[in-house]
């Protein structure tokens, strides 16, 4: 038991109803206070536990704040080059199709440098699952503009606010990948409140089931916060997602192949 008891337990027996997931390593993460990466990690770990996948999962963590993700999961893991996780995952999956291969990628990694790899993984219907953390910024490098940075949003590389005539508009990757025949399950959820976090977990479980059933490419996009680089304290950052990101990146199911409903 990791938790240190600091509250009296009443005499009648108390059941644990919520505890540390087995698939999550017992270490403190390097993520900033209030960063929703931590929530996404926990949801993925809980999903792996519930589906009994921990011992056959390989996590592919590319460059980004989540580059250390393999330290935080009790699964085999590797670190892929920036943008190349879907390719590395393809190599890992094709030589051992019985294993569960998951890429955990940020928006800079997936939408910018890795756009070709994710597009072709979906086009091939690669039987891998991608957890796509969209926090509209490059976190690890200190807050630069990403392809998902919102119009007018200030970042360290769009100091006057993102100028869309100069840099174009944010890319809605779920909608784009939903058009790939190989995509079996492409949904966008958010982590900005408890209700949505629960929905996100269900989506992750479904996505993993899609992979287990070999139905093709599955991706769960998760709107996430970056309190440090947004310069917004954690609670307000979650509100910022709801007020600013959700309108631009509507939540919902963008591709759900028929067979997925039967899972």
């Amino acid at each position, binding site marked *: *038991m*990791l*938790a*240190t*008891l*600091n*509250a009296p*337990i*009443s005499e*009648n*027996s*108390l*059941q*644990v*109803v*919520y*505890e*540390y*997931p087995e698939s*999550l390593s017992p270490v*403190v*993460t390097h*993520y*900033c*206070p*209030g*960063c*929703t*990466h*931590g*929530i996404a990690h*926990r949801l993925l770990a*809980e999903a792996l*536990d519930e589906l009994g996948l921990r011992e056959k999962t390989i996590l592919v963590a590319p460059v980004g704040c989540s580059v250390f993700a393999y330290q935080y999961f009790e699964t085999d893991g590797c670190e892929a080059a920036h943008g190349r996780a879907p390719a590395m995952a393809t190599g890992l999956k094709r030589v051992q199709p019985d294993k569960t291969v998951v890429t955990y990628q940020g928006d800079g990694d997936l939408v910018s440098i890795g756009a070709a790899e994710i597009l072709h993984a979906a086009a091939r219907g690669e039987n891998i699952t991608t957890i796509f953390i969209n926090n509209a910024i490059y976190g690890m490098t200190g807050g630069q503009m990403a392809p998902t940075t919102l119009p007018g949003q200030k970042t360290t590389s769009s100091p006057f606010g993102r100028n869309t005539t100069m840099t174009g508009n944010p890319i809605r990757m779920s909608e784009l990948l939903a058009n790939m025949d190989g995509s079996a399950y492409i949904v966008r959820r958010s982590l900005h*409140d*408890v209700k949505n*976090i*629960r929905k996100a*977990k269900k989506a992750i479980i479904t996505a993993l089931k899609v992979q287990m059933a070999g139905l093709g490419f599955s991706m769960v996009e998760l709107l996430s916060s970056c*309190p440090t680089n947004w310069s917004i*304290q*954690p*609670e307000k950052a*979650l509100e910022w997602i709801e007020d600013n990101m959700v309108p631009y990146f509507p939540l919902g199911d963008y591709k759900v192949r028929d067979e997925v409903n039967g899972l």
Partner: protein
Amino acid sequence: MAKGTIVINQDRCKGCGLCPTVCPQNVIFMADDVLNAKGYHPATLVDPDEQCTGCAICAVICPDVCITVYRETPAKKHAPALA
């Protein structure tokens, strides 16, 4: 109402302040008088009247998996969907 409680692993807590904002019973506060090993003010349960129902909403929002939730009625172990 079911009785419950939570245990906050204060060494893991980064003082992000999210759990107090969602606790339906308002029994979680940021301990301004305590500093953990990393220098954060950790969250703490202040529940003299045992109002906590073990609903686990705090655990769902916690980005650092600091909170273990207990509930009196025998619940299916580890079924967050229940919470």
